[in-house]
């Protein structure tokens, strides 16, 4: 099996899905000749032509709006929004239309499209290039919201998202694009949407994370084991919405304690929904309140202060210790 970074793994998924299904096309700013500013769509235009890999004019609303039209007609557009910070320019198309056509037309139409966006920090970026905005999409009924945590699951989830009959928002952590290589099988691989994965098992505590924060949670689990002798379960959500509540609940029923980690600001973020779900399903097993380790509720802080804002291992460990000591 070749070892690929996340950029190459996503590129492989796009390539294979486009080969498999002539209705899949790619649309976005700089996705063709340039291969995307992060090179995720590299070489696709050369292989599939400019009718299927479209360098659009600079207009997010029209990228998503025209893709909705294409999807209504039966195509399967995979749109790229260059950075998640620029998706507000198409938010109305996503919320008003993408998410609603199935319901509005009472099942006559559906919108089988994918919207890929790089999100998150860790790349010394300017404003709008390092924020995490998954909460906006996770909150919209009718959308699915997926965030992979590494090359292999990124490839398998993107393929699943493209095949999904409903619109999927697909966030790619910029910090992970080149972070690590993983073995990714040549033959196509699918991971079902809506399922979390237990990536480490332990009895004392459940850490819940997704995207770039999974690594942070895993490192924190190592520290807790090495320094405190505490065995920690780590859950990688993979899909934010619809949330895999069963996996969360059954883990917390065993551990009694949970800490949620995300890069998005705290208030009204995914952590709140996760905590509520745990309350609903595992209230009597809880030994401590569910803690959240998140960015603070402040606007863009600049990369000179980013480390202090985005959760890191020491903050997760500290929250875990608090939870264990409760």
């Amino acid at each position, binding site marked *: 099996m070749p070892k690929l970074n996340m950029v190459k793994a996503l590129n492989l998924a796009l390539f294979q899905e486009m080969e498999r299904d002539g209705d899949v096309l790619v649309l976005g*700013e*700089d996705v*063709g*000749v*340039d*291969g995307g*500013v992060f090179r995720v769509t590299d070489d696709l235009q050369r292989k599939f032509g400019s009718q299927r890999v479209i*360098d659009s*004019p*600079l*207009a*997010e*609303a*029209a990228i998503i709006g025209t893709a909705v039209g294409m999807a209504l007609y039966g195509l399967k557009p995979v749109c790229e929004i260059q950075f998640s*910070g*620029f998706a*507000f*320019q198409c938010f109305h198309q996503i919320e008003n239309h993408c998410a609603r056509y199935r319901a509005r037309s009472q099942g006559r139409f559906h919108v089988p499209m994918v919207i890929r966006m790089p999100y998150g920090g860790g790349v*010394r*970026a*300017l*404003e*709008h*290039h390092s924020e995490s905005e998954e909460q906006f999409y996770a909150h919209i009924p009718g959308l699915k919201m997926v965030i992979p945590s590494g090359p292999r699951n990124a490839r398998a989830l993107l393929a699943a998202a493209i095949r999904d009959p409903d619109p999927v928002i697909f966030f790619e952590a910029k910090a992970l694009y080149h972070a690590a290589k993983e073995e990714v099988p040549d033959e196509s691989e699918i991971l079902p949407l809506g399922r979390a994965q237990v990536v480490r098992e332990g*009895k*004392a505590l459940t850490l819940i994370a997704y995207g770039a924060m999974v690594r942070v949670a895993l490192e924190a689990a190592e520290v807790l084991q*090495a*320094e*405190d*002798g*505490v065995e920690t379960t780590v859950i990688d959500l993979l899909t934010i919405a619809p949330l895999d509540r069963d996996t969360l609940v059954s883990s917390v029923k065993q551990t*009694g304690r949970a800490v949620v980690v995300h890069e998005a600001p*705290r*208030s009204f973020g995914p952590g709140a929904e996760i905590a509520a779900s745990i309350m609903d399903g595992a209230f*009597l097993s*809880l*030994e401590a309140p569910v803690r959240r380790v998140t960015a*603070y*509720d*402040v*606007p*863009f*802080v*600049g*990369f*000179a*202060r*980013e*480390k*202090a*804002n985005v959760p890191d*291992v*020491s*903050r997760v*460990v*500290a929250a875990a*210790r608090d939870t*264990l*000591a*409760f």
Partner: protein
Amino acid sequence: MPRIALEPRFQVEHLSVLDSEGNLDTALEPKLSADELKSLYRAMVLGRRLDERMVRLQRQGRIGTFAPIKGQEASQMGTAFTLRRADWMVPSFREIAAMIWRGWPIEKLLLFYAGHVEGGRPADDQHDLPITIPVSTQLPHAVGLAYAAQYRGDDVVVMAYFGDGATSEGDFHEAMNFAGVWHVPVVFVCQNNQWAISVPLKKQTHSRTIAQKALAYGLPGVQVDGNDVLAVYAAAREAVDRARAGDGPTLIESVTYRLGFHTTADDPSKYRSEEEVTMWEKKDPLTRFRAYLEQRNLLESDIESRVDEEIAAAVQRFEATPPADPLTMFDHAYAELPPDLEAQRAEMAEREAAGPPRVGEPTPLPPRATPMRGQRLTRR
């Protein structure tokens, strides 16, 4: 029903004053004093030299990603030069030369690109908005500023900058439309540098010019040789005077070229040819203006070294900036910090005070607390 031909009386002019050798069309030569011409040139040279210095700073990791202006000095300075201090300047993200002319200290811009949000704060007496990164989104703000100035009866003109790619965004069209309907004192400056990252103008719009887009909104649009600072100045002078006189908005399309990369994270060899760049290098706005100044005997020989000294001093001040205090990230979220955020700030303060996290030193587990009322005892 017959087809009746409407006869729209629209025209789009292209303005140029200097040819590539610095020769002049005297009929169009703007009235600028020797001192004005000298400071115009100096500002352009400063823009160029700072740009080069910033690329090096970025390569050394001392600042982060930024958008170079190389090739667009005339386009920026010819327009910004027409503004008074009380006028408003609304930048996008590729106007460093114009921003410095407007009074932004160099070290502040460096700070901005080094990820310090302090770099985004204009001086208290400065009528300038900070850099806006989401393409075109600043244009409605410019129209709003102009409306407010008009409402207050202030003698103020607003100048807003954006690129060719920006004309594809809805915000551009909505801003132009509002400006036309409200008839406000705003000048839209489109720096058409032929590229929006990897997308060439011909894939951006099917219009023959960008200037003509103004006509659909009922405002004058003019195209100008953006590498000819005198032509840019002449067009901007006209537009600013018109706005100041209460005769409404104008769109200026300044035809120029981005000689460098889109940003320091970009690789233009993926999408454009060396020949194209070489062709535009021959039209370098600095060379052309320099030739003109030489002919008029206005060229100061030590200008480059004086500009370099100014930059070096600013870089030193920038490097002397103390490390960012993380706690200040709460300072400007609201006028008054809500209790919720007070608590978050306190949490961070406690963490900062505790110092860096300890490593490798085993922590005894704290004794298990007595359960909350109603909580069942642990199974473990």
